[in-house]
């Protein structure tokens, strides 16, 4: 069902090793054969290098969208690139581009909606909507706004107001559990978003109900809007907090696909007796020096000239 993947920006090509391979070791990514009849995200198995190339492409596209639509929150959208690439291309999330609300899908709630513009190129690439739509972001008539909404195929819920996603995800996870579905619910939040009390109500609820089919990915870029989260209202020690609420907690570099992908992939296939949180330690404005350096990167735009220079340069070395 997937459309071909046209490349708006040239992709780097890599040697073919299987996704999830770390260093030289080959780790086969679990393919949930037969788990759900009609598993539809027939993305070809990717090597780590291919995943990295895809991440680079998504990063580039995110910058290009921002160049055309400077209203988009670029720094916020660059930190979760790798997590989203893992989920969609790393054989983790089950989805169906031509039938976005396909019953057999895994549910991804992008609670930090403002910081998920990186998902636009991914959804377009996978065929949820035409790639040409990426040219229209924030333009009149487009459905791709500055903050994504459920009118976009592939988005489950209303985004923009922080702190809602995990509670809604709890309701979904409960429903899936009740009908013994093997589908999972993934919720992506920002670290600052964890200031919201509503999130802790949901964390408590999920822990109590042992929602093992629920995964929280914290895009832990350590900044909220006006400053470092540690300076505003600290979340440290975050892992201890979540554990004290009955969650299993994992933590890793959120930009290192070799570390991130196996974690997400394992979470996605292992049945858990409790909800799982992955703290993905990331950099806000990843790969854009001016953003990485500023505590108020959240509200910064990247000038078109700087984007051009960045796209001409080397992404991996940018930080």
């Amino acid at each position, binding site marked *: 069902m997937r459309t071909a993947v046209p490349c708006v920006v040239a992709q780097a090509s890599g040697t073919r090793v299987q996704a999830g391979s770390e260093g030289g070791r080959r780790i086969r990514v679990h393919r949930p054969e037969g788990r759900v009849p009609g598993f539809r995200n027939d993305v070809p198995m990717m090597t780590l290098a291919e995943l990295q190339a895809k991440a680079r492409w998504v990063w580039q596209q995110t910058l290009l969208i921002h160049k055309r639509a400077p209203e988009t929150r670029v720094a916020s959208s660059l930190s979760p690139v790798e997590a989203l690439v893992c989920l969609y291309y790393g054989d983790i999330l089950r989805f169906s581009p031509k039938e976005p609300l396909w019953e057999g899908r895994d549910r991804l709630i992008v609670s930090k909606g403002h910081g998920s513009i990186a998902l636009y190129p991914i959804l377009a690439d996978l065929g949820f909507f035409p790639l040409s739509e990426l040219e229209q972001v924030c333009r009149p008539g487009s459905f791709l706004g500055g903050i994504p909404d459920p009118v976009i195929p592939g988005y489950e819920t209303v985004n923009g107001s922080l702190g*809602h996603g995990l509670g809604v995800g709890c*309701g979904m996870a409960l429903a899936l559990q009740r009908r013994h579905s093997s589908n999972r619910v993934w919720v992506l939040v920002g670290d600052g978003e964890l200031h919201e009390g509503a999130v802790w*109500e949901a964390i408590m609820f999920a822990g109590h109900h042992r929602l093992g089919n629920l995964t929280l990915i914290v895009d832990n870029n350590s900044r909220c809007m006006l400053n470092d989260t540690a300076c505003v209202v600290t979340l440290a020690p975050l892992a201890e907090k979540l554990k004290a609420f009955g969650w299993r907690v994992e933590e890793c570099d959120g930009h290192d696909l070799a570390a991130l992908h196996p974690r997400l992939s394992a979470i996605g296939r292992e049945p858990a007796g409790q909800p799982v949180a992955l703290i993905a330690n990331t950099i806000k404005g990843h790969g854009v020096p001016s953003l990485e350096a500023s505590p108020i990167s959240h509200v910064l735009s990247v000038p078109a000239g700087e984007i051009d220079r960045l796209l001409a340069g080397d992404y991996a070395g940018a930080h």
Partner: protein
Amino acid sequence: MPALIKTRMRDAFIVAVTERMAADPSLIFLSADFGSPKLDILAQRFPERFINVGIAEQNLINVAAGLALEGHAVVAYAIAPFLTMRCYEQVRVNLCLLSQVRPMNVTLAGVGAGYSYDVSGPTHQALEDLSIMRVLPNLGVYSPADSATARVLAQQLLPETGIRYLRMDGKELPDVAEAPTVAELRQGFRFLRRGQGVTLVATGYMVHKALEAADLLAQQQGVQAAVIDIMALSPLDGQALGAALAGCPAVLSLEEGFVGKGGLDAALREILWPVAGQTRFKGLGLPHHYRFDIGGRDSLLAAVGLGPEQIAGQAVALLAP
């Protein structure tokens, strides 16, 4: 008139929900740690479909939304002021806004209309809810006056896609009439009494006061006041209500909520505007401040001019040449 047996709306509602749960295996009942003996029966009969989310109204709504997105019909049950105000933005975003894009079936069932929790102080009194819930798009706002209405509302609404708020009284009350018909529910109002001269247009508990005032008017003034029971503030068929009030020289609206703040009186002023030259209108409701004083509900209401005698007096004043 039915016998003066007093019942609680929430009991009638919960019994109707219990029946519906037997018919619809998708229906889930959520409570924010709020209950009653009838609810215990429901919970015992359907332990798998009764979930107490704890004292967490925000999460009550969010979990309801998630379940609804997955095809469940959901009832979310809590004390009215907390259900409407503590989680107002959750209702807005995850129910009203989201249900504009994706079909959802959620019934917000709140107990404690107006002053019904009279000794619990102003935090427990629902004085703003009619006004603020009416502001939200894609949300039905129902305000039954008696158990019979609460029951048929439950029967009618629970099977339907949509989001709605049901404002229920906290006290035992007699039924004001036979259960409303489906057609009456659909238009949001019904006549309890036909009359001439003045029409008392009331909602919730004030329907009872309106009936008492109408009795007084008949006995003391020889005025046959009409009484209309507003069962829904949204959707309320303004055209039908306007037609029903056409030619009526005087209309009094009665609500147990702040008056002049976008509730029933505002709805009526809008409906009556075209005939404002011919029809006299006055909105009665609670004055715009909180009350810390203790007293039975009727004495609280009398203290703000909403006793039956006072209502009758207002009607007489409105009719005066």
